């Protein structure tokens, strides 16, 4: 099982010299298994480049199958979908999986992006076959020989974390989520942030505790854990209601779950490469005597779980 990063950025794409090394495309990760259809996690702008690579293979002849796990439908996680070239060839197939979005159908939600005023090609007129698979929190299912599990995260309008197990190796993708301590994020809009470290409504505290337990369980012994670490601890102080974590939160989860490698992901759009280097170096130093290995996601980075890269 190999993991390839096509987009590592949060919120919106950021072109420019200052993002050349880590990359400016929004979230998209590919899981490659020899002899298995590609599994893509999230469809940010990084997906466009992945699509260009795929259409050199069986996708060119309309014989391609791709699976896609979507964490949630915020723009930075779906905006690459209309520009995914395999969808424009007859015969190709996309199996898309995401959380059941409440009172509407997943397909209807995603169709909005391709609606008239926004994009010229409606979703239902695409040549490829697209199937929408709605998931429940905690559901388990198989994609070929890969076992998939999911659990919900603490994020506005709710996101899902996914665990993939194959051939004795495991990967967890956990983006986007706030830590499970200062605020419960669901369907309410929160205009003014709570005080970080302040008191919490008991019902919310219990719900957050359970959510965290389930996530730790999902990450149990994972070989590779990709985690939303958009904020530095200082940035988090003023934005606990935005739904993103710090490397400290990710490290705590990784340690508790006994994960082997943690990979920082969903970098802040304003973060320059040099600033990202600095954050990475700081936490690398912090973990110098730790069993937990630390990586920082960059566009084009490939991690082979079978070769013990992670």
């Amino acid at each position, binding site marked *: 099982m190999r993991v390839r990063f096509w987009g590592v950025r949060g919120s919106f794409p950021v*072109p420019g010299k200052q993002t*050349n090394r880590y990359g400016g495309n929004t979230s998209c990760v590919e899981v490659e298994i020899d002899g298995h259809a590609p599994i893509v996690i999230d469809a940010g702008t990084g997906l466009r480049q992945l699509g260009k690579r795929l259409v050199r293979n069986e996708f060119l002849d309309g014989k391609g199958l791709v699976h896609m796990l979507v964490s949630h439908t915020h723009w930075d996680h779906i905006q690459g979908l209309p520009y995914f070239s395999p969808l424009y060839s007859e015969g190709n197939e996309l199996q898309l999986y995401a959380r059941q979005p409440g009172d509407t159908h997943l397909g209807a939600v995603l169709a909005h992006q391709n609606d008239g005023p926004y994009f010229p090609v409606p979703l239902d007129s695409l040549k490829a076959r697209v199937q929408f698979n709605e998931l429940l929190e905690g559901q388990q299912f198989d994609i070929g020989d890969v076992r998939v599990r999911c659990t919900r995260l603490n994020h506005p309008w709710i996101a899902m974390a996914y665990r993939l197990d194959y051939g004795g190796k495991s990967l967890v993708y956990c983006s986007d989520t706030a830590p499970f301590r200062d605020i419960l994020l669901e369907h309410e809009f929160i205009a003014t942030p709570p005080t970080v470290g302040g008191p919490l409504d008991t019902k919310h505290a219990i719900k957050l505790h359970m959510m965290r337990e389930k996530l730790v369980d999902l990450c149990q012994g994972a070989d590779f854990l990709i985690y939303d670490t958009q904020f530095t601890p200082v940035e988090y102080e003023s934005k606990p209601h935005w739904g993103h974590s710090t490397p400290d939160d990710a490290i705590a989860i990784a340690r508790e779950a006994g994960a082997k490698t943690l990979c920082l992901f969903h970098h802040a759009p304003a973060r320059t490469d040099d600033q990202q280097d600095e954050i990475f170096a700081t936490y690398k130093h912090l973990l110098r005597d730790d069993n937990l290995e630390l990586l920082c996601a960059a566009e084009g980075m490939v991690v082979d779980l079978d070769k013990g890269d992670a």
Partner: protein
Amino acid sequence: MRVDVWGVRGSIPAPGPTTNRYGGNTPCVSVIDTKGHLCVIDMGTGIVPLGTALLQKSLPVRDDFGAGKGNATVLLSHGHWDHIQGFPFFAPVFIPGTKLSIFGNARTADRVEALLEGQMNPQFSPIYTLKNLGATIRFEGVREHQCFRVSDLEVSSMELPHGETSVLSFQIKEQGKTLIYASDAGYSASGAPDDVVEFYRDADVLIHDSTYTPEEQELRRNRGLSSYLDAAAVAARAGVGKLVLFHYDQDHSDDIVDENVRLCGQELERLGAGRTEVVGAFEGMQIDI
């Protein structure tokens, strides 16, 4: 008037080392008139660095627009993603006291408010609704050829063909000088209609769509965008002073754009329009008209 270019790319932002010189952000151009009023054309991701520049007070705008004071105008060519996707990340919209008037096409279904409200839907955006933005936003529908005043600027618009839909082109005049913005224009193979040429006539600066090479245009005419040859042809007919190529294909590297600009210049010569200067728009470009 002072024109600044913040985003030049069509369809989808194109980050990476091969777009560093021209830029990978989607369309956004700002015009500041002699009175310091800010008028923004299109809200692609280029509007994000514009917002940063405003908060840093590095632009000569009236009333320190941006940090909770003053008002600005936005002219929207159409509602495709690459022309609105920067809006939720334009820093001034979060600051109470900021006033924004957004002008878009009144005729087509993409009424501007509904368009941007749909963008903020909680399924897609943590903002949930436009009402949660701090700024006061007013929406205005524009009819073709309707002239209106924005501070010292005289603005008029014209509908151009764009595949199965249309886009607004804007003509902006101040003190006898004229700027035309014509992104996403896609004429038929026989070229721009005469009334479009008249609309561009003698403009000092024409910012024009130049998505494709002629070879790509052969295969994609139905998408409703221009090649650099289409841009050269209409600029030559209209006798514009300066042609600024714009809205580059997401797959065109800086080297390809360089070459397209060069070939566009050759075409202008061939058409006997050698006095029309051609340049490729790049992020950070500033033109004083």
